[in-house]
């Protein structure tokens, strides 16, 4: 009996059918493993203050070293201002951060010792109005704060001192981005 698999048409059919089966398999839903963070969503989260992140993205930012590295890189490429780790501060806490004409200063609240003012301003740029503040903690965590509109190039926030954004801003090992 003739072996059908020796027929070129049979072998072409087999290859094409296997390839289409693989295409179907790749596009089959849902995949049993953990979901991947969407690049589109990562970008939206980095640049759009109104974006409401999905749990998938938040989990990936918390648990996936690759997503953390990628998001860090994305912030480097999309943010207007980057304030790196502060090099020389013996106490481990700082009073202000500064980079490229942008300054973030911290003042204690007289009314409530548990609170502090965060003042974000630009030297001489009246159009200065960043939309989002990111704090990248030393442990890889990202904290995000959509900002109110600037008044005369100045944004003032009142934060609880134990708030993770506040502690991150005051930590010399954190990095800060403004978009």
């Amino acid at each position, binding site marked *: 009996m003739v072996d059908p698999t020796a027929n070129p048409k049979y072998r*072409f059919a087999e290859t094409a059918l296997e*390839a*289409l089966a693989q295409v179907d398999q790749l596009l089959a839903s849902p995949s049993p*493993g953990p979901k991947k*963070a*969407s690049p589109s969503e990562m*970008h939206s989260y980095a640049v759009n203050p109104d974006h409401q992140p999905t749990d998938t993205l938040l989990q990936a930012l918390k648990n996936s070293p690759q997503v953390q590295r990628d998001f860090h890189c994305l912030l480097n490429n999309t943010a207007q201002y980057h304030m790196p780790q502060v090099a020389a501060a013996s106490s481990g806490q700082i009073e202000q951060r500064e980079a490229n004409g942008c300054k973030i200063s911290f003042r204690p609240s007289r009314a409530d010792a548990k609170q502090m003012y965060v003042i974000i301003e630009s030297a001489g740029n009246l159009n200065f109005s960043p939309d989002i503040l990111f704090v990248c903690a030393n442990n890889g965590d990202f904290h995000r704060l959509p900002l109110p509109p600037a008044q005369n190039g100045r944004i003032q926030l009142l934060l609880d001192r134990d708030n993770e954004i506040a502690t991150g801003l005051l930590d010399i090992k954190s990095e800060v981005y403004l978009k």
Partner: protein
Amino acid sequence: MDIVSPENRFLEESKSAELTACLQTIQETTVDDIAKFSDKTCRELARLIVCRSYPSTVLELCHLVVAAVHCGTPDRRYEPLFFSSGTARTSSFQSFFLQIKNPSPAFTFAQKTVEINYWDQVFTINYSRMPVLSALLEFLMTTIGYGQLDDHMAPALQAMPAHKQVSEMANALSKSLYGYLADHLPPVQEQRKSQSFLRFLSANATAGLSAIALNDNSVLDYWLAHSSADTNNQTLDVKTYRSVFRMACQLIRILQYADEQYRLTSALPIGTDFDGGEIDPSDLEQALAEIDPGNDPLDDLEEVTGAGLKIVTKREMTLLREVLHGDAVGRELTRSILRNATFGEAQAGLVQALRQSKSSLSAELISDLPDDDYRARISQYAALAGHLDQMLLAILYVLTDAGHAFALSIALALKPDLDLSPLAAGVDEPDWQDDTVVSFTAATAARQFFAAMKNPDGDLRPLFEQAEKTYKAISRQGFAKKPVAQRPAIEQFVHGGAALMALRKELSALLHRHLTPIDWDQQMQTDRPLFRAQFMILYGGQNG
């Protein structure tokens, strides 16, 4: 048959699951609640990956990144093009580039292409390629990661690179992707999932493997014989009738393509010596692009609907996908289409019920199936055909109102007996041998057609009034009270109309040619006990 150990299969499945998750992320990405990438784009991407024919597409992507960075936008980054230009559709990318106020002289933005004039060479990218390039960029970001991708793109981010530099970038990027896929995607040649189906068909064919060997009986016989086999030792899910039917549809298209290629060139487009490395991945991908249903009018219609012109609802789209699988399938697997629609759906319901109950299903539940008989299904398809006619009439009204020549094609599709000969009156026939002649006659005829449609005393007036009345009775997204006049919106009606015409033709052939000779009541009487018995074996507790 190859036997895969459970341990190895687990490892292979984990690797594939990682890749499936990447593709799934791309499929599920939305922009303002609309899928960012069409199904067509996702399938095109998946084919590139499976066939490993991505290098030329990666090269195009790198050139597109150069265009995004250096075309004249203020931020000189590529992210805004891919992430801030809306859904990944041809029109979105076209708008992005055509709206650039002061483009760099190195770029020429035409209606269909972006031309990049490197000092050492010119490279042209079609806007229609950009959706899949955008999907590839996201795929690279989920697989090798954004950081690595951005490192590869670094030479394009400073001064305008040379063409040669972009080629080097693309090669390095392809190499990274190759490395990732080597760990996550088994080569097609190593897969043997469809072998049992092909062997079954060959064993039952008298004249070798051809489209004739594949028919309604062989599909059903294969499913009956193999669906209850021990699935733990199988590499392919043939438990559901749907999966077998889908494989049969694909095989029909593959064999049809192979026959056409033989007729044209007396050879298949690819080498068949896998071990000798004869297969050219891009040839295989090109063949699959023609075979794969991702390039059909159903996808075009879905794309138009997704873009906001609601020609069909989700339910109507599901029904269209259920009944239309291409002319060859309609002709050769007519009974299988109806079996898939009724018993395939019933089986999907059983699987769902089984998942919820976690035990075998009752005989009563199975004996009540299916919910619809064949005749009821055919009635739904006939009603759907009527709906397509209505929507085509409505589109005829919009295009007539806009004076778009495609209205003529729609009018002829709706009324094939329409006598348009009076439109030729007064037109001097040009010398058709002269290459410089543009279809003056056609343009004049179109003008006369529109005049005749709107002339209260003209022969075409009843058709126009019918079209107008139909349009005004529709209250769906995209069908405003007064038809839109903007060109992009009109183009959507043209695309939607073209897809509808093709689908209507296929549905009409199925309804009036392929379905009519069959006694469906008799067919249901024959099929029902067969399917119920098999469902009992699969889900009634007789097969664990």
